[in-house]
């Protein structure tokens, strides 16, 4: 068993416990203790789940990018497992952020969907991640799979800011950004649960990343060992 995996096994519990604690406190503060917003009323409580999800999906993509560069540099299969895990998690967090965003959009903007700059760039991000995950299923050689996936992740990461700026310019050209949250300063009553939830989500992501990396590593290990056993079987039969 890999040394890193053994270390993950030992310490991952702390991240899980920290995430659970922060999230429970954050949920209590967000759902019960905090006051409703002056403009949006009670609906503002959706922010405490939506914004941390969105932050975390970007964090996950950043981890994916860093891991991809690291993989291309060192070619460590465990780093590739981490990238694969981060991509899957980023896809989950991005789609949840989109769904909660849609639910927030209905009562505030009276529409489920709008081609707002952020929504559009998050959709593009989700499409890139789905492409990445699909790509990984279409390659047989694990080494090549890891290499190509890393290339796609890096290109996608470089592309994201450009996509965001282009969509933003495009929207401002067509209609004033009436739906922007910017400029509305968030009071500290609202900010504290938000920070709590953001920290909790980041910890949860770290915990999930550790678990998923382990899962992919163990699956590969089992495959490799089974294959080796299979090979031994063939070998003894051929020799007898």
């Amino acid at each position, binding site marked *: 068993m890999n040394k890193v995996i053994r270390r993950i096994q030992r310490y991952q519990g702390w991240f899980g416990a920290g995430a659970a604690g922060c999230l429970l406190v954050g949920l209590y503060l967000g759902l019960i203790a905090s006051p409703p917003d002056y403009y949006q*009323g*009670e609906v503002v409580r959706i922010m405490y*789940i939506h914004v941390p999800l969105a932050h975390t999906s970007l964090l996950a993509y950043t981890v994916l990018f860093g891991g991809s560069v690291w993989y291309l540099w060192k070619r460590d299969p465990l780093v590739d497992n981490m990238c694969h895990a981060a991509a899957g998690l980023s896809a*989950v967090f991005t789609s949840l952020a989109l769904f909660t965003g849609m639910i927030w959009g209905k009562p505030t903007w009276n529409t489920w969907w709008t081609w707002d700059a952020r929504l559009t760039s998050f959709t593009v991000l989700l499409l890139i991640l789905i492409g990445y995950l699909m790509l990984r299923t279409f390659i047989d050689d694990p080494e090549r799979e890891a290499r190509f996936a890393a290339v796609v992740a890096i290109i996608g990461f470089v592309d994201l800011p450009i996509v965001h700026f282009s969509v933003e310019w495009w929207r401002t050209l067509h209609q004033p950004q009436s739906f922007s949250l910017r400029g509305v300063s968030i009071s500290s009553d609202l900010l504290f649960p938000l920070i709590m939830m953001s920290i909790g989500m980041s910890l949860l992501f770290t915990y999930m990343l550790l678990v*998923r990396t382990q*899962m992919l590593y163990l699956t590969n290990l089992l495959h490799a060992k*089974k294959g080796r056993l299979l090979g031994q079987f063939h*070998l003894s039969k051929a020799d007898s």
Partner: protein
Amino acid sequence: MTAFYLRWGILVVGATILVVLTYRNYEENLATMTPEQVLANSPTEEIRVKGLVRGGTLRGELEEGRASFDLAGEKDTLPVQYEGPPPENLRELKTLILIGKWKTPTRTFQAREMALVTNYGFVMGAYIVGLIPLALFLFFMGRKVCLLYDEIKQSTLYQSESDTHVDSR
């Protein structure tokens, strides 16, 4: 495996407590009554009433925060006397939530605050959509890891990398 289910059990208990607290908070502080309920029960404490401002009944100085109108429910209407901060959302034929007290002697509702209509369905929906899939995802992932460890340990495959010597006779 037992430890794994135990951890999740504790988490589920914590989440359930949170749900109960949220529900009670909603029932106590944020639940609204209809004008019919107010008329039938004549409550004495401060309450929240939800209804529609009837057309042609709104009068008073809105800039100074004084107004009177009829709040319509399904069947009955409730005469309302509003005194408080200048309201932004007060228009005829608009659904409102009023916070105040029912004065039985004058049979009017003395409102001191006005709130936006809340739609708890959206808030609950967002939290369910956001958290439940995440929890399920994590649960099945964690269970898979436990199962994989068990499989590796139970099978004869479990041996350190260096021990796996391939005999190439």
